[in-house]
């Protein structure tokens, strides 16, 4: 509980004694490049294969002749938009971005770079962490949109190449009983995941004491705690937003 309390105090410190807006602007752009552009390849790769596997596995499970083939595409679409794109992308980013944030801040802590900022009278948590949080909030939704698109495309390519669904059925299935709120729900989840991953990882890295071993532990804790927070938030948001 005390750790949770310290996490909330840490969150509060991000918004106290902030620097001028122009200071953050350059930092946010740099972080967007690192977090967003730097993650495109891995997110694209994972989401394409997830879509492909979802399509083929769904086809394998729906071999009843009374079920139209277009249902396969509907399941790929809905599972991608509602769950796979935001949650799998968040877990991939918890591994890539979360560990990077924790190890970067942890190393800055043990090499006294954070102390150097504090001595200058700069709010180190706000200066170092806030740009990462803002960049995550901006870039995660873009990555999830890309992931959803590529996942559905991956499903199409895998399904048609494997001969489990025709292109026309896939296209028809994508348009079947489409609910636009699914996309809104997915983006709401993504923003929450982005906040959780960036702040939990930053908290772990920022509070490292010791040496290289502790930086490694903080990085591991950042990933595991972020993943736990993501799946817990996923369940809570689904309960809140999708149940009647």
């Amino acid at each position, binding site marked *: 509980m005390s750790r949770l309390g310290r996490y909330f105090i840490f969150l509060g410190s991000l918004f106290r004694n902030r620097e001028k807006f122009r200071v953050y602007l350059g930092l946010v752009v740099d972080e967007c490049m690192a977090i967003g552009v730097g993650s495109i390849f891995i997110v694209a790769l994972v989401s394409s294969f997830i879509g492909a596997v979802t399509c083929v596995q769904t086809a394998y499970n729906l071999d009843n002749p009374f079920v139209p083939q277009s249902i396969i595409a509907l399941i790929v679409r809905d599972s991608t938009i509602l769950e796979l794109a935001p949650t799998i992308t968040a877990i991939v980013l918890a591994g890539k971005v979360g560990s990077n944030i924790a190890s970067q801040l942890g190393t800055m802590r043990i*090499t*006294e*770079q954070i102390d*150097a900022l*504090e*001595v*200058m*009278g700069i709010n180190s948590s706000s200066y170092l962490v806030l740009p990462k949080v803002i960049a995550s909030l901006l870039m995660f939704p873009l990555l999830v949109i890309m992931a959803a698109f590529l996942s559905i495309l991956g499903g199409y390519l895998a399904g048609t190449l494997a001969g489990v669904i025709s292109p026309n059925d896939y296209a028809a299935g994508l348009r079947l009983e489409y609910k636009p709120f699914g996309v809104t729900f997915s983006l709401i989840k993504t923003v929450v995941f982005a906040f959780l991953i960036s702040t939990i990882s930053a908290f772990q890295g920022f509070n490292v004491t010791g040496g290289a071993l502790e930086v490694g532990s903080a990085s591991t804790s950042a990933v595991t705690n972020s993943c736990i927070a993501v799946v817990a938030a996923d369940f809570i948001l689904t309960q809140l937003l999708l149940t009647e």
Partner: protein
Amino acid sequence: MIDIKNISKTFGDRMVLQGISGEFKPGDTSLIIGTSGTGKSVLLKCMIGLVKPDAGEVLYDGRNFLTGNDEDIKNIRREMGVLFQGSALFDSKSVRDNVRFPLDMLTGMSSSEKDDRVQVCLQRVGLEEAADLMPSEISGGMKKRVGIARAIVMNPKYLFCDEPNSGLDPLTSIKIDQLIREITDEFKITTVVITHDMNSMMEIGEKIMFLSQGKKLWEGNSDSLTHSDVKELNEFVYANKLLRKE
């Protein structure tokens, strides 16, 4: 002048500092010495605001650094320069940008004024040629000199150096000591150096404070350092074979 009064600090059930008091005067290079784990770095951190002492006062020219209002504390911080033990240079910034950083963050100087000031500081530490290198591309001694350049770029009134010679060869150590001494004299800075380097003590120790197990056991200068009757200090000083009386 920096005035510390009855500084005490406990971590858990371990008392690291026990009622340390002392004065550090402008233009003096004051040394805080002692064996490892004796509380030197914690005392320095209490003085620069990185650790909050359990009791005591830290006064900068009469201004209380621990209980002052935010504006006073901010002003005092801007008058401080700190050279950290590991130099604490920002890995992602070049030497020039490291030195320029405090100017960017804390002043409203124009870009050309900042460039001029950075140039002056880098020249002062003899590193104008290395301005565009990254911290990973320079040696330990150069990092210390960049750290000094960054510490003096804001024209500080108070300069703190945490083990400026650690990890350096004797020749480079002497150069760093000389640089600290020259800068202190030149700008009439109040300089506090944490060290356990005997060369530093003999070379730049105008005033020396000896700590042992969190207590101040002795205070004097480099001339009286080898003539004290404090057992712990003598053990510390004469641990060096070159000074040992056989």
